[in-house]
């Protein structure tokens, strides 16, 4: 069947099977490889896309349900979005596999709450797993992205985390 929706600002019509999940369609038909197959049951967040602005797990969303919706993947953020820049500045990734999902979830979090507490960040981002364990720096990145100016927000953060004590 044909499914029509908007992806990253472009109207598209793609071929999909009625029982197919959106994840496979985005990857196969549109080569949007930032949405990633990982858990297949909607618990890890690596396949996250924004559906009409809300983060969803594309691995458990039937593709036909996206009909008429506006979908954003990390490819649609360009590369200089404040949250992307914050992730680079904080070096909040290792393998990068979960990073697009983390960025999209953080983007939505900051739209909902411009100054999230540590607790709020941990809870909100708790549905995105990072097996490399970059959580401390991801939390840093979210704090860095607070406000529109990434660097301007750097001084205002406060977390309970201690940074490493190097140097002898």
């Amino acid at each position, binding site marked *: 069947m044909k499914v029509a929706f908007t992806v990253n600002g472009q109207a598209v019509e793609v071929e999909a099977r009625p029982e197919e999940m959106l994840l496979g369609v985005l990857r196969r038909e549109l080569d949007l490889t930032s949405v990633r197959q990982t858990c297949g049951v909607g618990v890890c967040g690596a396949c996250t896309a924004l559906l009409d602005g809300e983060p969803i797990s594309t691995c458990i969303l039937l593709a036909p349900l996206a009909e008429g919706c506006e979908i954003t993947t990390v490819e649609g953020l360009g590369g200089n979005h404040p949250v992307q820049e914050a992730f680079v500045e904080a070096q909040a990734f290792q393998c990068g596999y979960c990073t697009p999902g983390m*960025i999209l979830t953080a983007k939505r979090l900051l739209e909902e709450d411009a100054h999230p507490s540590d607790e709020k960040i941990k809870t909100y981002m708790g549905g995105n797993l990072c097996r490399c364990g970059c959580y401390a720096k991801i939390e840093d990145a979210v704090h860095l992205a607070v406000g529109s100016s990434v660097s301007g927000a750097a001084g205002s953060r406060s977390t309970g985390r201690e940074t490493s004590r190097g140097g002898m």
Partner: protein
Amino acid sequence: MADARVTGAIRYSQDIRADGMLHARFVRSPVAHARILSIDASAVPEGVVVLRPEDVADLGRYGPQIKDQEALPQRRVRYAGDVVCAVAAETPEAADESVNLVEVEYKEIPAVFDERAALASDAPLVHEHIHLSKDDAAYFGIRPQQGTNTCHLFRLRHGDVEAGFEAADAVVEETYRTAGAAHAPMEPNAAVARWDGDRLEVTTGTQTPFNMRTDLAGLFGIAEEKVRIISPPMGGAFGAKTFVRTEAIAAALARKAEKPVKVVLGRDEMWMTLNRHPATVRVKIGARSDGTLVACDIECLANTGAYADCGPGVAQKMGFAAPGPYRIANVRVDSRAVYTNLPPNGAFRGYGQMQSTWARERTMDLLAEKLDIDPLDLRMKNILEDGDTYCTGETMHDVHFKELLQNAADAVRWSGRREGKGLCVMLKGMQTPSRASIAVEDNADGTYTVRCATAEMGQGAKKVMRMLAAEMLGVDVEKISCPDPDTDVVPYDTRTTSSRSTHMMNRALKVAVADLKENGKRGYGEVVDGGGLDPDTGQGVASSHWHQGAAAAEVEVDEKTGKFSVVRLHAPIYAGRVINRPAAELQNEGSMIMGLGTALFESNEFADGQITNANLSDYNVPAMDDMPDTLSHELVEREGGEVQGLGETALPPVPPAIGNALYSLGIHVTELPISPERVLDAVDARDDRDETPAMAGAHPVSADGHGGDGDESGERIFAGTPDGPVRTQKGSDREAAGILTEAKRLATSEPSKLFFGTLGVGLVPIIVVWLYRRSRGSEKS
């Protein structure tokens, strides 16, 4: 240009496509040990390629240390999940459908799952003959015990252990068990295999491109040069992407189909491919009354599953570092890799150190209690210092254990009143012997290309190679490129494991850059570290450079529910000289967080050998909201220090630090993970001990050194002995938790232990946990 990881532009092997490629799916055995009677694929639609055992009957065997794997088993499956046949179709969906149309008939034969049971003289044999590999991954003397399930027995002998124990004023002994765990890299394994005439090319996220080349060449009976392995960046690996995993089947399918074939494992299949060794470790330590350690006797059993993979190496490393960073005059270690009918277990971040460190460091605290010495003081009194001799006979250099341990203690404000606080110190070997080579090319336009087999799996390998080269060549890091490993192009390297790459490649690169400066266009550098141990005595050089780490934890326990939280976790490791600080910090934090998962909840659960929690909903890995209130670490550097590997060091010390923090409250847990149920059991055991003086004998610490085994004392509670009814009188919350524990035990191996309650009641908390995870996961949707 923005980092490809934040734009999503990075391409993993998941994302590789080849013209005309087919998609593979595997038919897996549902039973753990069986003869294959028949395979009927007649219902599979025409055009779908089916690979059957007879299609690979002409091939040899593979396996990095023991040649015990066939591309497809010819007659017999050895674990639930063993691949019986495979299909390749034009779409993944068609392949899925075809897999379901294949009918296989099995005749089950007795199976064994527990590493202790597998050593019984009447245990079913998983392999009748054990054939050693000649690959470079079999770099040490492997000692299979033919006619048993022991595929490697490593022995370490130092001094006279019997005399040592006789001279001891106090002896403690305890047995520990650690669960199998999943690497769970976010990216499941994926590979594309294709043949070009008699040449095989495999693109696969692998940490071991050259070992893969050797093993596939051996399997297909072709020259190594006829095999090309390309390794794109991996979406995490942690050991899961070592040696041949899916590639042999992909290559055999491609050979039959005469088309490229892509394999992408489903998440559940990751559990059927490679896991961390479950292990049983018994530790006996003797000391004089002043705390001087005089003897140590350790036995390790590493459950390597149905195929050895690198289990012999894991058992050896688990064994030689088991005595820990202490001066002990008399040491005996027996460490075995044991075949069972579980899925294969292999390399996993920490490579056996976590299992033996858990056992030894927990025992050190038992000894401290018995001697009435502060656990920090006991460790400090015996800790290795520069110039000391380790029990392998090697002299230790650049030693920092004392400082690491002190820093860990300081981080939790260690003092005589240490309730809720625990410590750990450990050492870990780097693969020895080991060889690394690297090339650097001058592109004559101000840029340089570094070529090496070091694979990128998120640890920042490429960046660190570029930074090192930039520093040595005196140019900007942007002028250096470091392409993906390609065995046709890069010089030989042992593998990207063992936290060896930054250390070894830094040294090789120095030689290469000097060569380039002398020769102009291309420089080549190679370093070879000799050494190794005599597998029958454990004497020699275990490690050309040691990884050194410590940890401290502080916990708060709700003794009514067994729930506890880690409020502070600190891990200092020796880092020599840090090259890429953010990456080094991430490796250290990541190791700690993985150690936290190991300590608190990660456990592969099986029923009749079938994995029962093969998904990220039932198998929990740490999420952001599982982080301790304070998680901190240190990279301890030294002026002029060597570049060190630090990808694993902070994982093994985490579980024992947490276990010892609980023990400071009298809560003695011997099994990992430390579930609330186990904490409750330990609280009950403590209270029983305190209330009933006659029960003192059940305490694991006993004067004669033959004290109760943790498992046995647990059994006493559940087996309906006089202590049994005590449990049924506890509050209902405890009963529910106890039943869950029992359900879990039922699900693992010993149904007879189900003493009270029903599985149905036991499922309630499982479902609650599941719903909790679901709700948390779907909060955003």
